């Protein structure tokens, strides 16, 4: 195997972050101690930041969260380029993700909120009035078909016969 031990572990955790160190060790022909040590190292060095979930929100009992993708154009600032503005945007708890983009606009900002109005207010009252922001374009997510490699809704998709030669 020409991939690093760390890359193999990250790959397994990306598919199921609850895979235990004992199982990972067996999958990689290693020991539980070695896997735990490598995971601890990656956590310490801020490589592994958090273990999270993928939820089919259409099936949850609580009210759905509203998601929006917002295109943001900015004027880069003297000496600091994009970093200072990106930092300001990222600090809002409503912002789930913030990416610097190539192409027609500068940032793609993913915003979550309980209602359409909350998200709209965030954009008009907080985001678009930030120093340096010149324009925004808001796109609301209507339906999620696939998230993080998982096609929704996920049912059993094993169509094979029970036993084949």
């Amino acid at each position, binding site marked *: *195997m020409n991939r690093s031990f760390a890359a193999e572990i990250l790959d397994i955790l990306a598919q199921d972050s609850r895979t235990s160190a004992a199982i990972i060790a067996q999958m*990689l022909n290693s020991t539980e101690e070695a896997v735990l040590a490598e995971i601890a190292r990656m956590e310490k060095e801020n490589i592994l930041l958090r273990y999270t979930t993928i939820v089919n929100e259409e099936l949850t009992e609580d009210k759905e969260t509203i998601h929006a993708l917002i295109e943001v154009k900015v004027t880069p600032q003297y000496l600091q380029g994009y970093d200072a503005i990106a930092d300001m945007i990222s600090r809002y708890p409503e912002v789930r993700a913030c990416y610097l983009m190539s192409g027609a606009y500068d940032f793609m900002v993913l915003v979550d909120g309980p209602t359409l109005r909350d998200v709209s207010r965030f954009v008009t009252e907080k985001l678009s009035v930030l120093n340096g922001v010149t324009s925004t374009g808001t796109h609301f997510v209507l339906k999620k078909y696939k998230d993080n490699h998982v096609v929704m809704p996920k049912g059993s998709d094993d169509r094979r*016969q029970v036993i084949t*030669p």
Partner: protein
Amino acid sequence: MNYDRILNPAVTSMPPSGIRKFFDIAAEMEDCISLGVGEPDFVTPWDIREAAIKSLKDGMTCYTGNAGLPELRDLICRYYKERFGVFYTRAECLVTVGASEAIDLAMRALVSPGDEVLIPAPSYVSYMPCVTLAGGVPVAVPTTSANGFKMTAEAVKPLITPRTKAIILTYPNNPTGGIMTREDLLALSKAFEGTDIIVVTDEIYAELTYSGTHASFGALPGMWDRTVTISGFSKAFAMTGWRLGYALAPEPILDQMLKIHQFTMLCAPIMAQYAGIEALKNGFDTNFEEVRKMRREYNRRRNYLVRQFNSMGLTCFEPFGAFYVFPCIRSTGLTSEEFCNELLYGKRVAVVPGGAFGDTGEGFIRCSYAYSMDHLIEACRRISEFIAERHAKSEDYVHVI
């Protein structure tokens, strides 16, 4: 009507596949977990499926030439040259309906009534019936876990007679997962010196080799002339349902196989052939990244399963190919059929008895790891429970005595 008198005794005397029986029971059972499948759990990659859809949209619904689309045959030749170092030209390549058809064609083209064909045991279930239906006599070459279920010159030589027409090589092996390295093949090839024995090598699992790269028999010095290479798209590209395989052989042999194919099959399905073109083209463009990803996944599950069985006390030699492990269950005191039955009824786990792959498979079970990790973990939990309960029972028994 007395059908027994009418039907061909060569067929009526042929036992049905030993896999069938378990299938019928397991398929009906609720909450049954199967490790019995001999095909990938991956769905055919999307770009390949899309190429077939496009061929349908473009109205590609006709026959192709008997030997298959020239573009596909050229790509297959390039694939075998670049991946495994064996050289074939378009005229030496025949596209078939799965490797299954290619095996049948090779036997029918080579075997005259009474000819003997050497077959490793245990091995895939089709070889013996194909030899028998061609009028030949299958001769089992026993292989053992002690040497990784490889065929050796020592085992083969005493079985060679003036009637030995061909030998079937099938590595990586179904059901054992055994492989043969180039050195192993070189040593074996000494047994054929001074004979006209044809080597039919079924390399359908070649891409699923987990230590080094697959060694192809036709690449050995001086062996090309006596080699018929068979493979297909089923396992490497997760395309079992498409029914697409191929045979590569010197023209004098291939031309005869082509004749049988021409009259019995006409050609392989055209949409499958277009899908195959995409699989190889995309493979060359991406250095077979999709295949590598699948292999990486399989390898992790393989590591997991081998460790699990060994820790349960079902000793398991390390299989370096295909997607099967073949643990020995003799320590339980059960035959492989009893083991499979009790496991199925007791814990609702379906595995395949080694005996289904020939007598030398007795004492083993075939477990496939073409399943998700969650599935494998649950299956192992149930199997180890089963083993633990059996141990507990046999200890009670000792106390009673």
